């Protein structure tokens, strides 16, 4: 009899809800838990809570979202149980052994793997499935079986964000610039368009490496992963590590003078041209449409 325990960051966290949907593929009983919001985040202690629950409920699988904390907590569960853990899975087929398809290279490559262990431990690739709101989420306090050692690493304070403005990870519109922008001053046209659309400014890794924008603006596999309604990529050629950061975008508009740029293979809309001409023209057109 299979039983799946799903770890949620919170009941209304979208990626956690996706994990619940995903867990449906495993069949059998399912219970979804989140840790009490009043508890300071302590990955080892939270993992210990899940380990205990899994043992109590005879869970054959423990599933979490492929988020920053989800991957961490499941890694702790895996280390405690000395069992394999598959991060960022796209799908799973239970069995002996179970098989998973998981993301490599931020999603630009997939791996089919057999998992030799029990319980099956995995995290779900963001946006691999659509979220269905979870009906029954139990909110737990951290288990008493969590030791002092488990609590050593915990959040002791939170420092508020110093930057105002739209957060890149949450923005509905992201306008990014790449090497084609040419200089730090060149980003003013990107900033203008982003401001007109109430969006955030992003950039490619070459831009951060050149010192034109801070790393916090970087969209990519090792930067921020975004999921806007529309991602406007200007002067970005489309390296896989960049595309891994914007896979979550609902739509991609690429503006590039090179018709052969690899980004066009992943784009929904294309404008072939120099961003220094195109972007200001779009901004002007927006102002015209708004009568400002």
């Amino acid at each position, binding site marked *: 009899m299979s039983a799946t325990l799903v770890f949620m*960051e919170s009941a209304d966290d979208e990626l956690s809800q996706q994990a619940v949907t995903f867990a449906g593929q495993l069949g059998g009983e399912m219970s979804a838990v989140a840790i009490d919001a009043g508890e300071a985040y302590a990955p080892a202690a939270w993992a210990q809570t899940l380990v205990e629950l899994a043992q109590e409920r005879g869970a054959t699988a423990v599933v979490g979202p492929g*988020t*920053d904390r989800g*991957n961490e907590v499941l*890694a*702790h569960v895996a*280390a405690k149980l*000395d*069992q*394999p*853990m598959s*991060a960022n899975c796209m799908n799973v087929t239970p069995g002996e052994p179970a098989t998973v398809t998981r993301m*490599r*290279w*931020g*999603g*630009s490559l997939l*791996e*089919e*793997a*057999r*998992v*030799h262990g029990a319980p099956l431990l995995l995290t779900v690739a963001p946006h691999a499935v659509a979220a269905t709101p979870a009906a029954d989420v139990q909110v737990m306090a951290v288990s008493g079986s969590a030791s002092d050692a488990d609590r050593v*690493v*915990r*959040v002791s304070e*939170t*420092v*508020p964000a110093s930057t105002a403005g739209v957060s890149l990870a949450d923005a*509905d519109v992201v306008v990014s610039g790449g090497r084609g922008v040419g200089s730090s001053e060149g980003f003013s046209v990107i900033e203008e368009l982003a401001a007109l*659309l109430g*969006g955030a400014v992003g950039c490619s890794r070459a831009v951060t490496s050149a*010192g034109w924008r801070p790393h*916090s603006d*970087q969209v990519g596999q090792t*930067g921020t992963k975004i999921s806007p309604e*529309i991602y406007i990529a200007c002067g970005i050629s489309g*390296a*896989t*590590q960049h595309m891994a950061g914007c896979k979550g975008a609902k739509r991609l*508009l*690429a503006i590039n003078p090179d018709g052969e740029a*690899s980004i066009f293979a992943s784009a*929904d*809309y*294309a*404008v*072939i*041209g*120099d961003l220094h*001409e*195109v972007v*200001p*023209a*779009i901004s*002007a*057109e*927006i102002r015209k*449409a*708004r009568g400002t």
Partner: protein
Amino acid sequence: MNILVCVKRVPLTGGKITLTEDEQAIQTRHLGFTVSPHEECAAEEAIRLVEAHGGESVVLTLGPAEAEEQLRDMMAIGIDRGIHLVTDGGEWDPQATAAAIVDAVRADGTQFDLLLFGNESADAGNYQVAVRVAYALGLPVVNGIKGISVDGAGLRCERERTSHPPGRDVYAVPMPAVVTVLEGINLPRYPSVPGRMRAKRKPLAAAEPARAQPRLEMVRLKLPASSSKQAEVLGHGADAAPRVVEILSEIGVM
């Protein structure tokens, strides 16, 4: 402080990924290689901490003979010595990797105050080697760090919050500890040529660990289904602007 940094040699994939015929690996002929990005920042962080607080930094990799290039690159920017766990280039799953690292740390004998890892490797992205190493060595571990400073006998680690409210979570972590970092924690320095030359002569210890049977066993690699979508060309140059604004309107972001 004695700091160990673990790095991995990964290819620079460019605009598209191609697989070998047997689907067991990426076709890396004509590709360049580098240290995985988060880890390069980890090495830079180790160097800065040792510059500020004294001690020694060590870089370790589990990888093929060619991975020595990555070790020398890290020594060129200032890491003091290296440990190369030489493999035949095949796949090592996270548990086997962690076990080999733990054995090497014990064999080295140094009491490391800090073991730095990248949060996840650019290629396999398993998010767990550092955590497993920490448990095996009985050390506390925290992931995803964007800022480290020494605070008395321990470390103050900062981590970007991914949920509301935006900001940074702070962890006070006693040493010795394992910490994984994210790119953006610093900007790695560019190596000097004297540094590169010195790196060639810095000590490098090599071992050939035996690979454990994989518990997470890669069967094959495959490319994600390419969407059959053809980008709709909205126009060329500034003339495309009106059509773009139409689309933005349709989406509802105007």
